[in-house]
């Protein structure tokens, strides 16, 4: 591996380890507002759901526990969350 390849390999490794999470199966990073500690409400905001309307849950294996919008989560890199709306309407068109 030459120097250029080594540099690219290192950068690509660093990129993979940059803090990020997945919300509703979409990736978000620091530029989107991801940080080491986040509230459930801040996680919901990443997918545009206001805290008063949001239900936030873990999306990892058997851990589907609900996270309150004011609860603080210590973010693990690459962690998955699901955010849904409390109210869903159906059956009509405006």
């Amino acid at each position: 591996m030459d120097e250029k390849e080594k540099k690219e390999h290192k950068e690509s490794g660093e990129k993979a380890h940059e803090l990020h999470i997945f919300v509703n199966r979409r990736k978000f990073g620091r530029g989107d507002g991801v940080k080491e500690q986040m509230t459930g409400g801040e996680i919901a905001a990443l997918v545009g759901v206001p805290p008063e309307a949001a239900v936030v849950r873990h999306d990892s294996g058997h851990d589907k526990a609900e996270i309150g919008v004011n609860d603080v989560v210590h973010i693990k890199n690459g962690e998955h969350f699901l955010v849904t709306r409390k109210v869903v309407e159906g059956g009509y068109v405006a």
Partner: protein
Amino acid sequence: MSRERILKELEILREGQQIAELLSAGRDYVLYRGIPAGGAHPSLPTVTDVIVPVPNGYPGAAIDLAGLPVDSAFLPRVKGGRNSQGIVQADGRTWQLASYHPHQNGGGGPWDQMKNGFHTYFDQLLSWLERLD
């Protein structure tokens, strides 16, 4: 319909381990596989596949509707599930489209083609499959 755009949107979900495919079955559909579902209903499956038609004029036209296999236990329980919007044959299965219109006063906010797409419609499907009757 911008096929390239849709494939990019589905690639965003794929990075998060959500499989979704663009199908041509008379018209175009996106098939989402294994969406988490059921909320707190222990008698229901934990995941389901959902089909969504690609609207004519997409992305200028809003994504609308959602379909489940005709024998799905979710069909009578999801919002709009009892109001059939048509039957679809795709992926070797028969699907029924439900009357679910998240971007037309259905709770998902107005359609914005600059930020919405099949990757964000997944959010609407998650909510639909969790808030059951």
